[in-house]
C-alpha cells in the first residue's frame, strides 16, 4: 500500500469501525471455541467418569456422545456465524473504504 493511500485508509471512520467490530467479533468467537474445547478436553483429563454418565437409566448411551457431537456442530455453527457477518457487514465496510480511497485520488 502506498504512503498516501495508507493515510487515507487509516483515517477513514469506516476503517476504524471495521477493525473494531471485526477484532472484537473474531476474538469473542475464538475464545468461545477455546473455552468449549478445553472444557471438553480437561474434563476428559481430570474427570472422565463425568462423561461416562448414561443419558437416561435404561440406555447405554453416555452424555459424552451428545457432548462430543455438540463440539463438532458448535465449531461448524460458529464458522457459519462468522462467515455470514463477514460476507455482509464487514465486506460492505471494506467496499466503502475502497470507494473512499478511490474518490480521494
Amino acid at each position, binding site marked *: 500500500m502506498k504512503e498516501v493511500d495508507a493515510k487515507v485508509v487509516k483515517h477513514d471512520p469506516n476503517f476504524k469501525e471495521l477493525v473494531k467490530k471485526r477484532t472484537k467479533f473474531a476474538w469473542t468467537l475464538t475464545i468461545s471455541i477455546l473455552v468449549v474445547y478445553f472444557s471438553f478436553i480437561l474434563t476428559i*483429563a481430570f474427570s*472422565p467418569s463425568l462423561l461416562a454418565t448414561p443419558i437416561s437409566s435404561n440406555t447405554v448411551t453416555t452424555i459424552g456422545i451428545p457432548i462430543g457431537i455438540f*463440539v*463438532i456442530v458448535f465449531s461448524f455453527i460458529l464458522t457459519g456465524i*462468522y462467515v455470514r457477518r*463477514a460476507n455482509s457487514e464487514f465486506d460492505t465496510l*471494506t467496499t466503502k473504504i475502497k470507494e473512499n480511497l478511490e474518490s480521494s485520488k
Partner: protein
Amino acid sequence: MMKFMLPFLIIAPSILFASGTIDAEIKQQPLNISAIVMFLIFVGATLGITYWAAKRTKTAKDFYTAGGGITGFQNGLAIAGDYMSAASFLGISGLVYLKGYDGLIYSIGFLVGWPIILFLIAERLRNLGRYSFADVASYRLKQAPIRILAASGSIATVILYLIAQMVGSGKLIQLLFGLQYEVAVILVGILMILYVTFGGMLATTWVQIIKAFLLLSGATFMAFAVMYNFDFSFNSLFSTATEVKGIEIMSPGGLVSDPISAISLAIALMFGTAGLPHILMRFFTVSDAKEARKSVFYATGFIGYFYILTFIIGFGAIVLVFKNPIYLDGAKQALSGGYPILGGNNMAAIHLSHAVGGDLFLGFISAVAFATILAVVSGLTLAGASAISHDLYSSVFKDGNADSKIEMKISKIATVVLGIIAIIMGIAFEKQNIAFVVGLAFAIAASANFPVLFLSMYWQKLTTKGAVIGGSLGLATAVLLVILGPIVWVQIFGYENAIFPYKYPALFSVSIAFISIWFFSITDKSSSAEKEIEAYERQYLRSQTGIGIDGALKH
C-alpha cells in the same frame, strides 16, 4: 477377505512389470475385479483432468493457485479432501472400532482448529500473501532468512507427511489389491508426479474434489447401511456394540490420561493445522477473501460430517466385523488369542464395507482409499515444490526477479525430485515404526510455521532476528523432544525410559518458539528492526482491507 488383482498387472502400464513378481501365496486369492475396474476409471478420469488442466496452466500463478479461479465451495471440498486422508478415514474409524469413544476425542481435536483459522488467520493470510504462507511471514521482514526458515519448515512438514502417506499407501494397496509393496509405492509416486507436474494446482484441486466427493458418498452409504440395520436408532447400535465389546467403549479411555498430554495434543492439532503448508496454500486458490471464508465454512461442515460418519462406521464395525469369522485373522488368533481382524484394526472400515455392501462395494471403497492417497500426496508435493521454487529459488536465489517460465520449470523439477524422494523414503521406511511421523509433522507445523506466521500478522514488534531464532528453536525443540520422547526413544531405540515423558511435545516447543521470538525481537535494537516495526502499520492496513493486493490476484 483379501481380494487380489492379478488382471491389474495385465492391463496396467508396463512399469509394474519392472518391479518384480507378485507373491505366490497372494496369487491364490480371489480376484477383486470391481476394485480394479473402479480404480482404473478413477485414474483414467483424473489423467483426463490433468490433460485439461495442463492446457490451462501457463504461468507460475496458474501452477501454484489454479489462477485463483476455484470457488469457495470447491475449495471447501478440496480442503476437506486434504484432511480426509486414508490415514484419517481408516485410522479414526479403526480407533473407534478399537476404543469406541476415544476415536471421537481425536477427531474433535482435528476439527476445532478450523474455526480459529477462519477467525484469526484466513483473512489476513489472503490479504497479504500470493502463493505461500512465507509471503505473509516475510512481508515486512528480511526476505532471505525468513523465506529460508519458512521453506525449511514447509519442506520438513511435507516430507514427513509424505513418508507417512507413502508407507500407509504401500501397505494398504498391498493388502487391498495384492500388489507388491514397492510396486504400490512407485505407482503412487508416478501418478502423483504426473498430476502435479502437468496439471499443477488446478489438477491437484480437482483430483482432491473428486476424491472427497467419492469418499463422502462411500462413507455416507456405509453409515446409512449400519443405521438401517438398527432401525436408525443410535441406542440400539450402541447397546449391541457394548454387548460385544463391553460398556467401556462408551466413555473416555486411556487416549489422553494426564492434563499435560491432553493440552499438548490439543495444541499440536489446533496450531499444527494452522501451520500445514498444503492447507494454507489452498487459501490462495480462490478469488477473494469472501470465497476464502466460505471455503472454511464448507470445509468445517464436510470434515465434521465426515468425522460423525467415521464414528458410526467404527461402531458399525464393532457390531458387524468384530468376532465375524469371515474377517478373522486365524493365524494371528492362534498365536496371540483375541479376535484380531485381517490386516489389523485400521482395516475395520474396509471389512465393514464388505459386510454391508458385498464385493462390489468393497471394490468401491478400496478404489476410493487408493484415490485418497493419490490426492493427498499430490497436494503435499505441490506445497513442497512451491516452497522450493517460489520461496527458495525465486525469492531468495533470484531476489524476487525470477522469470515466471523458469520458476515454473523449477517447480516441476522440484515436484519430480520430491516424488522420487517420497518413493525412496516410502520403500526405506517400509518396516519402520512410523507412528511418530505424522505427530512430528504436526509438531513442526505448530512450533516453527505457526508462531512465525501468527506473530508476523499480529505483533508489531516482531523482527527478523526474533522470527528466525525463535522459529528455528521451535523447530529444533519439536524434533528433539519427539526423539527423546516415548515413541522414538523407547519404542524405536529400545531404551527403557523416555528422557522426555510426553508423547506430544507441542505445549513445550510452541511455548519455546513464542517466548524466544518475543525475547529476541524486543532485544533487537538494530536499525533494520526499527524499519520492520515501522512497516507494520502499512502491512496492518492491507491485512485488514486487502487494499494493495497484486492486481493479478483479482479476476
